[in-house]
C-alpha cells in the first residue's frame, strides 16, 4: 500500500446558497501523514472537514478513499450504510468540544467500548481490559473508568475522546480544533500525546486549526484556506518559514511571539 495515497480529494465544492464554503479543493493524504488545514474563521476549514467525514453532502467533487481491504470507495457517492460503517471502523472524528464527541451520560469505559460493541464485541471482561489499556495510553488514571466524562477536566475529556476514536485502530482521524478551549499547558500535553499516538499507531490525520503553533507542531504538511479556496499548500516548515502568498504572509506575521 506504500506509494499510494490513502485519500484523494478532487475538486470538492460546497455552497450554502450563493455563499461558497469550499471551492474546488483538491489534495492527497498519505498513510501516516498529518495534514494541517489552517486559515481564519469562516474560511471553510470546518466545512471541508465535515464534507470529507460525510456529515454534510458536497455539491461536487470526489473523495476517493482506499479501504483497508484495498478497494477504492468514493465517499461522496457511497451508500450511507457503507459510509457510516467506515466512519466507525477505519475513521475517527475528534470534535472541538468533547461533549459533542462523547456520551456524557455514560462512563468513560462505556465511551471507549462503544465502537467495539457496535462491531459486535460482546465480552464484558475484554471490553473492560481494552478500555483500561486505552485509558493508560491517553494518560487517564485507571480508577476513573466508571466515572462520567462530565466529572473530567477539559483536557481529560479531550483525551478520552481521542481514546474512544482510536480504539478500533482507524487509518484516518479527522480533528476539528482538537486543542481549542484548552489552556496552554494542557494544550502542550495534548499535543505531545497526539504526536506520540499518531506515530505509534501510524494513523493519518487531518487537523483543522486556526493556531499556527499547533499546526507547526503536529502537521507534516499544511494547506492554507481563505474564502473557501486553498491559497497555498506545502511542507509545514517551508510554508511557515517562507510564505509565498500574501494571505499566508499576513497570517504568519500576525502570530504573537512571546
Amino acid at each position, binding site marked *: 500500500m506504500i506509494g499510494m495515497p490513502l485519500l484523494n480529494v478532487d475538486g470538492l465544492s460546497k455552497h450554502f446558497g450563493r455563499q461558497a464554503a469550499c471551492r474546488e479543493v483538491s489534495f492527497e493524504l498519505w498513510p501516516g501523514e498529518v495534514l494541517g488545514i489552517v486559515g481564519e474563521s469562516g474560511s471553510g476549514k470546518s466545512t471541508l472537514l465535515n464534507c470529507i467525514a460525510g456529515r454534510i453532502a458536497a455539491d461536487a467533487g470526489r473523495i476517493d478513499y482506499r479501504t483497508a481491504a484495498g478497494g477504492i470507495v468514493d465517499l461522496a457517492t457511497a451508500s450511507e450504510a457503507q459510509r457510516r460503517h467506515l466512519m466507525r471502523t477505519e475513521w475517527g472524528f475528534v470534535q472541538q468540544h468533547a461533549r459533542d464527541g462523547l456520551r456524557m451520560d455514560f462512563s468513560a469505559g462505556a465511551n471507549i*467500548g462503544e465502537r467495539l460493541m*457496535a*462491531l459486535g464485541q460482546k465480552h464484558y*471482561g475484554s471490553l*473492560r481490559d481494552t478500555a483500561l489499556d486505552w485509558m493508560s495510553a491517553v494518560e487517564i488514571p485507571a480508577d476513573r473508568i*466508571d466515572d462520567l466524562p462530565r466529572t473530567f477536566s477539559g483536557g481529560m475529556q479531550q483525551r478520552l475522546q481521542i481514546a474512544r476514536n482510536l480504539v478500533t485502530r482507524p487509518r484516518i482521524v479527522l480533528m476539528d480544533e482538537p486543542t481549542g478551549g484548552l489552556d496552554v499547558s494542557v494544550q502542550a500535553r495534548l499535543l505531545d500525546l497526539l504526536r506520540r499516538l499518531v506515530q505509534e499507531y501510524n494513523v493519518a490525520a487531518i487537523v483543522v486549526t486556526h493556531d499556527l503553533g499547533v499546526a507547526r507542531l503536529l502537521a507534516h504538511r499544511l494547506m492554507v484556506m481563505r474564502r473557501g479556496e486553498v491559497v497555498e499548500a506545502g511542507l509545514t516548515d517551508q510554508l511557515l518559514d517562507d510564505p509565498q502568498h500574501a494571505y499566508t504572509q499576513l497570517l504568519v506575521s500576525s502570530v504573537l511571539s512571546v
Partner: protein
Amino acid sequence: MTAMQQQYEASAGVLDGYNFAFLDEQTKRMIRRAILKAVAIPGYQVPFGSREMPLPYGWGTGGMQVTAAVIGRADTLKVIDQGADDTTNAVSIRRFFVRMTGVATTEKTREATLIQTRHRVPETPLQEDQILVYQVPIPEPLRWLEPRETETRKMHGLSEYGVMHVKLYEDISRHGHISTAYDYPVMVNGRYLMRCSPIPKFDTPKLHMNAALQLFGAGREKRIYAVPPYTEVKPLDFDDHPFEIERWSEACALCAAENSFLDEVILDDRGGRMFVCSDTDYCGERQAAGHRGPMAAPYKDREAAE
C-alpha cells in the same frame, strides 16, 4: 370475575349508536393494514394514525385500538393488568369492549381467543389460535440513547444497534450485573431491535417461538409492531454476563408454584411478607387443582370437603 360483575356486564349490553368495537370501519381497516405490515416485518415499528380513545394516553389506548381492529363477534376476550384480571385498568377495558361488541369475556387464559395485556405475559402457554395484544408506552428501544427520531430510524434501517450494548455495559459496571429488569431489549428474527413493553424480564423468554400472534400497540407514539407465531426473539446480553431471569427463594404462598412470577406483598409493619403469583388466573387454577401454599386459605379446603 364475581357473579355480580358478570351480571353487570351482561346487563349493560351493547350500546346503541356506536359501530361494532367503537372504531369506524375505515379506521379499523387502516389499523389492520398496519398490523399486516408489522406481521410481515417482525419487530419493525409501523406508524399508524392513532385515534383518540375514551381513555387517557398511558392507559392502553394503543392496545385497545389493536384489539378493536382484530376483535370479532366470535372472540372471547381476556384483559389483564399486571397479571390480574380484576384491577381497575383491566376491568375498565374489558367492560368497554363488552359494551362496544357484546363479545364473551373470560379470565381463563385457555378459553380466551384474544388477550389484551399490560405488564405481563400469562403463565399458561399460549396456543396457535390465540392473539396477545400488548399495551406499549414507548415503542422505540433506542429512545433514551438517541433522542432524534430521524436518527433512530436510520439506526434501525442500518441495523446499528451497538449503542444498546453500551447501556447494558453501563448496567454491569455500576451494579455488577445487567440490572435492566423490565422492558428488556430483544432482537426479533435476527433483524430488528425491539422493546417488549414493560413486562418483567421473567416474561421475555416467553416471546421466543411463541405459538400465538403477538401484537404491540402504542397509542400516543402512533406505532404498531408484531412478533408473528414461532419467531425468534433473543434478549441482548454479553458472553460473560448472559441473560438471566428473576428467581425467588420462595414459592407462591397460595398455590406453591415455583416457576411463576411472584409479587411481594407486605403484610404488617414488622417485616411480615408473602410472595404470591402475579398471574391470578394461573394461581387460581393451581389452587383449584389442589395445590396449596403455606398461606392458602383453609376454608377452601373445607369448601372442597363439603
